[in-house]
């Protein structure tokens, strides 16, 4: 395939993915907006008003970046896992497998789809947050780069999950038992400095902590973690997950016999 043909193939997958999640927006975009609005009302408004300032910010303002990133993480992951697993389940993935499109173009297309949904949901949640909080932007470049990289990372995670999944139960296990606990314990609702020393050290093993802190730094200018360390960890995870994804796709794991 020429470069131009590869670009057409990439744009085709991106377009298909975008149309898919926009067509079913009631299932893909609306629910995270409603869920996050409830977090804003309950944790930010009702309970948060009883909590003192956190690192110099109102509790509501402190939790907004974490909640936005939480929505981005879950939706990027969910988009790729459901789209690719559904294509695998219906065997329509064979349309791509028999075509000359290289594996890395296929992967890029699906990941871009996941990132697009993550960013659309993230933007929607940010708009809703304006009803509850004043939007601080300390460093827009950090916010944008962290949200795009985090979304890429979890889209890759969703891709690997969908390739390895053998049934529909397998695509809900990771989000339920891994992603949600790690996100909740990743400092969305609190600063790890509030934790005892042992749990602070334990929290450092949670990769989501680095992402949430880096993202919060972009908004508020405060973080529990070194920013460069956060970028380094995110990029390392992306490199490892991308390599695994490409290996699985090239081998046609679960798709070719």
């Amino acid at each position: 395939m020429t470069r131009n043909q590869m670009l057409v193939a990439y744009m085709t997958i991106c377009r298909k993915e975008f149309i898919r999640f926009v067509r079913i927006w009631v299932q893909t975009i609306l629910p995270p907006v409603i869920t996050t609005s409830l977090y804003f009302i309950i944790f930010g408004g009702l309970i948060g008003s009883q909590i003192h300032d956190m690192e110099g910010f109102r509790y509501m303002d402190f939790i907004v970046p974490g909640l936005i990133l939480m929505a981005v993480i879950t939706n990027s992951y969910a988009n790729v896992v459901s789209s690719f697993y559904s294509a695998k389940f219906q065997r329509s993935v064979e349309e791509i497998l028999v075509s000359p499109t290289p594996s890395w173009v296929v992967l890029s297309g699906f990941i871009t789809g996941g990132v697009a949904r993550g960013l659309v949901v993230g933007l929607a949640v940010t708009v809703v947050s304006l009803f509850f909080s004043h939007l601080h932007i300390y460093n827009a470049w950090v916010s944008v780069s962290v949200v795009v990289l985090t979304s890429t990372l979890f889209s890759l995670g969703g891709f690997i999950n969908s390739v390895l999944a053998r049934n529909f139960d397998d695509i809900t296990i990771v989000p339920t038992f891994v992603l949600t606990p790690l996100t909740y314990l990743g400092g969305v609702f609190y600063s790890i400095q509030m934790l005892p020393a042992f749990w602070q050290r334990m929290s450092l093993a949670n990769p989501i902590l680095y992402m949430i802190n880096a993202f919060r730094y972009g908004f508020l200018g405060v973080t529990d973690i070194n920013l460069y360390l956060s970028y380094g960890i995110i990029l390392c995870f992306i490199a490892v997950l991308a390599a695994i994804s490409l290996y699985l796709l090239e081998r046609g794991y679960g798709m070719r016999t």
Partner: protein
Amino acid sequence: MTAALSIRNLIKNYQSGYMALKGIDLEVQPGDFFALLGPNGAGKSTTIGIVTSLVTKTSGKVLVFGQDIDKDFSRAKSFIGLVPQEMNLNIFEPLLQILVNQAGYYGIPRSRALERAEYLLGRLGLWERRDDAVRTLSGGMKRRMMIARALIHDPKLVILDEPTAGVDIEIRHSMWEFLRDINAAGTTIILTTHYLEEAESLCRHIAIIDNGVLVENTTMKKLLAKMRTETFVLDLRTPLAQLPQFHDHEVRMLDDHTLEVEVVRDVGISRLFAELSSHNIDVLSMRNKTNRLEQLFMRLVEDNRRQQDAVRRKQA
């Protein structure tokens, strides 16, 4: 001339230990209409799967229009259009969108893909349904949609794995006509089917696979010439009380209005009618008991199994 498809000593061992292909050699010339026949589990779909990258070969060589799949599978795949045996369309997507996307995977821009999709959906009688989701289509429509999808990038080689399975006669005939047209326009076609009259009517060359080995690979004419006998069923105008003695043919009486006759190819059919006239038997109509190719197919497969059993017994 470079072969459209060249397969050399193709072997496939599944992880379970089952050997699906035991060293297949096959060559399909450009522009041919080629039948790949065999009983269920013979290795046809495995062969097609390897050529289209859905199955990984254990060993052997496959070249598509001279392009070795081990060296540049991407280029080899760009020559092929596949109609798989099982439905693999996204049931939630509209037809036009599926075709435009499929063209995109081959690097064809949207504007050109739309033109081609309009032509194919029109030819296959699906244009009116272009915006409908696949799940709303009938079985025959889904089959035609899979043909349209396989042709969207105008491939030089089209592989159809049982494309007319479960399709009614009218649609089957319209699909045959369409396939003849694209073959006449220069597209090489490889067809697997269980309807042997379909293979006989459409294909010029034929290969028969059984138990992972090729038991026949020749032209349709040469294969049919191998028939030693043909069985005909005769419907009689007047009832027959007793079966008279026939000298040149083996005749069985099915009922008082029906005879079954084995005609030896060398003896010919004129001699049969002469003998029937001599017994004052008035024939109303006659037909082949089974399709000619079907008789041959069964014979070849049975011969192959006998040979394989003999080899196994020897080895034991």
